[in-house]
């Protein structure tokens, strides 16, 4: 093999090393990119969780508040009805207490 041929082979070997070295550099780029993407994915899911929890909270507690208000309104209605129904029997109850206290029972 002549000097020129040896030089050509040597040149090819150096180029081959550069190709592999470039590939290794690209590997680092791929890894860094994957890390960034992974971080973005985690942040995205966390943001989604925060948003969905807030929506869930709003829906569940609004429903609970409506149910609580309905329960209280029913109790107020029942109190008014009790008062109305009792008013006709009030006189009888007063008489009963009076009789007991005055020794008539």
């Amino acid at each position, binding site marked *: *093999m002549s000097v*020129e*041929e040896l030089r*050509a*082979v040597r*040149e*090819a070997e150096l*180029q*081959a090393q550069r*190709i*592999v070295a470039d*590939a*290794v550099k*690209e*590997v680092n780029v*791929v*890894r860094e*990119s*994957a890390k960034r*993407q*992974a971080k973005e*994915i*985690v942040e*995205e*899911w966390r943001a*989604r*969780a925060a948003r*969905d*929890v807030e929506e*869930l*909270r709003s829906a*569940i*507690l609004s429903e*609970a508040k409506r*149910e*609580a*208000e309905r*329960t*209280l309104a*029913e*109790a*107020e209605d*029942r*109190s008014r009805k*009790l*008062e109305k*129904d009792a008013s006709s*029997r*009030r006189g*009888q*109850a*007063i008489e*009963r*207490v*009076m009789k*007991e*206290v*005055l*020794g*008539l029972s």
Partner: protein
Amino acid sequence: MPGGVEKLTREILRLAREEADAIIRKAKSEAQYALEGSRKEAENEYKTVLERERANLEMERQQVISDAVLRSQSLILEAKEKLIVSVYDEAFGRIKNFTSSPRYEDALVRLASQALSMVGSSDVELLVNEADAKRLSQLMLREIGGARRLASVKVSSTRIKAIGGVVARSSTGKIEVDNTIDGRFSIARNTLRTEISKMLFGGDSV
């Protein structure tokens, strides 16, 4: 350049490119795998957070509803209590007015007779308020005592603070029966509570 060397250099470069491609392919595949792992982990974390928060919110929801149920029960109990108290207040007011009416004398005699029967002594004094001391005439006392076959019934000089009724005390002072309107009212407040509640609210009593 002779053909053999050119072939050799091409082969060197082809192998290098193959190695480079393999390195990059492997790295991309590993990156993809790692990304999938991160995605699954993040999704699981999302599910865990949502499940935990849903459970917390369910407890919060139950608490809000329990509070409302307790508040409404208390509202109804307060309304009932108010009505019962109003019955007692009204009854007390009417009884107080009644003690100024002529019909009260019969009630006073009745209360005195009941007290005397409970004392179980033949010599008894009656403690009354100032107005009732004037009402209880000698005739009335004889009537009360005679009916009970008592040796002596007299009105004590000691006055009591009551709207009406009597305290009967044996001459020895050992037995004392409170049959005042105030005392009877105080007892009736407790003993009649269930009955009054049933009268007012029927099956929906306290």
